[in-house]
């Protein structure tokens, strides 16, 4: 791991990251000065107990939230300097998201759900359709394109979410408990898809999970305890 970080400048780099929720007597310090480098092309698992601050860290890395203090650099640039427009651009085209819940628009069609990031990016309807169908084909859901998202099974929904995450050809996919809502077999399928993307397309994976098995498939795992990286860091086989 050390070698990787030293060779190329890291894609994402965090130093002395603090995040405090609330203020005064209600203040809760979720992250207490955390340092982390993520190299280009790497898959990394963030593991920890419930409430340890995994989602908090992921949201900060994905620039969805601002840290209380500390810096996050993307491609060597301090992200606190990004304008609102650049921030939106980055979220839209550099990152893809798979959240703890599916966050699908239940009444809209599968295709519309998948192409939402393209719609936000201002891509034309025709191209949205073509790219949406391509992504759905990749995830073997092309026959469900016209269905309402609500009518899919849990595993299918999670695949729709992954299709949505990769539709804009992001450099990083953030996945918060991607298999948390799925049974073991379906979860394994979803995992395969994600690691396949990482290997073939070089998309970075940042996976938040409780699941040691999933973590072990990543290039690297980091453990969070009480808002800090635990010393126990290891390189997977």
């Amino acid at each position, binding site marked *: 791991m050390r070698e990787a970080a030293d060779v190329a400048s890291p894609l994402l780099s965090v130093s002395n990251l603090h995040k405090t929720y609330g203020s005064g007597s209600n203040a809760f310090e979720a992250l207490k000065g955390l340092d982390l480098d993520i190299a280009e092309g790497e898959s990394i698992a963030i593991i920890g107990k419930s409430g340890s601050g995994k989602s908090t860290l992921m*949201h900060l890395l*994905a620039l*969805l*939230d601002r840290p209380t203090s500390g810096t996050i650099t993307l491609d060597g640039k301090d992200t606190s300097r990004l304008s*609102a*427009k650049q*921030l*939106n*651009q*980055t*979220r*839209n*085209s550099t990152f893809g*998201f798979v*959240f703890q819940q599916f*966050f699908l*628009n239940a*009444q809209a069609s599968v295709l519309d759900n998948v192409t*939402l*990031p393209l*719609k*936000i*990016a*201002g891509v*034309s*309807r025709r191209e949205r359709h073509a790219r949406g169908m391509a992504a759905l084909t990749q995830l073997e859901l092309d026959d469900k394109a016209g269905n309402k998202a609500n009518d899919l099974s849990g595993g299918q929904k999670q695949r729709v979410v992954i299709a949505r995450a990769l539709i804009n050809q992001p450099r990083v996919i953030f996945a918060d408990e991607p298999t948390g809502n799925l049974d073991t077999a379906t979860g394994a399928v979803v995992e395969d898809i994600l690691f396949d993307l990482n290997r073939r397309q070089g998309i970075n994976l940042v996976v938040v999970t409780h699941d040691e098995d999933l973590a072990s498939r990543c290039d690297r795992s980091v453990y969070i305890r009480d808002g800090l990286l635990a010393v126990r860091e290891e390189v997977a086989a």
Partner: protein
Amino acid sequence: MKIVDVVGTAFRNAFRSRLRTSLTVLAIFIGAFTLSLTNGLGTGVNQYLDDTVASVGVDDVLTVTKTNEEAPTDDGPAEYDPNQIEADGPPGSTTTALTDDDIDTIADVDGVLSVDPAKSVMVDYVQHDDGTKYQLSVAEFVPGMRVELASGSQVDLDAADPELVLPETYLEPLELGSAADAVGQTVALAVTDATGEQVTTDATIVGVAEPAVITMGGAIPNDVLTTTLYDLQTSGAPEAETTRYAQASVSFDPAGGEDAAQALKDRLEDAGYTASTLEDQLGTLTAVIDGIVLVLNGFAVIALIAAGIGIVNTLFMAVQERTREVGLMKAMGLSSGRVFSLFSIEAVVIGLVGSAVGVLGAIGVGQLVNGVSGDLLADLPGLTLIAFDPVSVATVVLSVMAIAFVAGTLPALRAARQDPISSLRYE
């Protein structure tokens, strides 16, 4: 996000909760419907008055009367004036008569092209081919007056022979045949002269008039006929009687516009005469109608404001409902500005649908009312009680959309300010 996608998405979002949206649309419908209908009523009645003025076709004539110095005031009864004669207006109202001297004075006023004293003629009867005699009123003479014709032409003012335009209703009683047949035929008109003797004169029918409010069903004579009848009627009367007129028509050059007309009125005023155009006379009526319509519109606007509050409510619910969706879209890089547009356009869409349906409903009901009122108000031919002009229809729709937009800003701002993480954590 492209503008077309923002609008399209807002449109679809507006109808996601169909019942809720329908109820809000219904509230707007009621307001827009009422507003359109009251507006339509104002437009219809005013249009009718305008048409009436236009059908007379006189914009270069002032009606001049002598200003009555001793007009009855609250101070007590006015002193008797031997020059006072019966005037147009409520029965019993009088005016100071114009004499030939007055006519000359008026003619000398700067800007006056010509003066025609109004010669009021009382025709006893009209008769065709020794048939039955019928009563006939002769319309007050206004030079340049035009009426809607069923056949024939307007009277020729300069014609040497007596001519008249006869109302359509006289065709059958006088056995004149069709309107086209009647043109060119001759009728006899009888008046009683000052000595009490009945005398007749002939006149040629040059046109047949459709019923209209301005002529009150009377015949329209040309100059020669009026003069002939007046002379017959006044023969044998003392000269003082024959040269007293209730009013006179003054023609002027309308090219000078409103200001020139007003200046002329002022000059006549200084000379001791009161001048008014036909528009002035109808203007008071228009003002009253506008006032009534304004009050009615006020009620409709109150209904619209209530409906606007309904929009606020509907949109707050929508924002609440879609908290996670908004959070997701923001996480995917949708700007706050676009989120604001999404919700405010949704409000505008609700406003547009409500007002469009309201306006269409009002037009439909207007047609029905016009059908019924055509029968009930047969005395006012040509009256479209509820009329819609494109400008006021567009104004209603646009102002409802504006109200909807304003109503939508509060919820839209709330949605735009949402922070993506707390929205995503929202259960």
